[in-house]
């Protein structure tokens, strides 16, 4: 079975400081990993996916299959980054996956001025 673990429920940093939100997963096959974000009073939305290898809003995430991790990083945090962040895993291209997601418990990031 697949599992996503986000060990930190809360993370506080000051503006301009680096930030890293941790995500570990367990899945025996070849997963796709994602970060979703929910800003205050907004809908849950996709931030980035590992397969795109993009930097979105200054955030990057590298899939480390050896450590089964997909940590989200930003070198200089901004106040507008304050939000709830969820790591999620999709599995099984082929079969009946249709893009199902397993989410972690989420990390609340607070960036102080």
């Amino acid at each position, binding site marked *: 079975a697949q599992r996503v673990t986000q060990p930190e429920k809360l993370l506080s940093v000051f503006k301009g400081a680096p930030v890293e939100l941790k995500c570990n997963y367990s899945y025996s096959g070849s997963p796709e990993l994602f970060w979703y974000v929910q800003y205050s009073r907004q809908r*849950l939305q996709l931030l980035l996916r590992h397969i795109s290898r993009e930097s979105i809003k200054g955030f990057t995430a590298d899939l480390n299959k050896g450590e089964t991790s997909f940590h989200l990083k930003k070198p200089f945090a901004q106040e507008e980054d304050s939000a709830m962040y*969820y790591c999620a895993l999709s599995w099984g291209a082929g079969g009946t996956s*249709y893009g199902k997601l397993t989410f972690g418990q989420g990390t609340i990031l607070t960036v102080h001025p």
Partner: protein
Amino acid sequence: EAGVAQSPRYKIIEKRQSVAFWCNPISGHATLYWYQQILGQGPKLLIQFQNNGVVDDSQLPKDRFSAERLKGVDSTLKIQPAKLEDSAVYLCASSSASVISYNEQFFGPGTRLTVL
């Protein structure tokens, strides 16, 4: 484009009562998902439709929960009878995912259910 619509936004009921939630996905999205998000936890998939067929309902408590998507567009999720532990936000999402590819899921605003 218009986003995923859900109604109602809030619902308060007493235990053992029934409740229904409605979802209208983004036009053209064949895949529709219902998630349950209990306070302090991440969303948990309840059921997944591809057009009007159920792809996965393995985590749906079928003794009290039911869902349908009769015409392959709108969907309803029903709880009958509700229990205290059903208090949660119910999220609907849609995507153009297929069996061989993942595409971004777009989420609705959610329905916050409180069972007293």
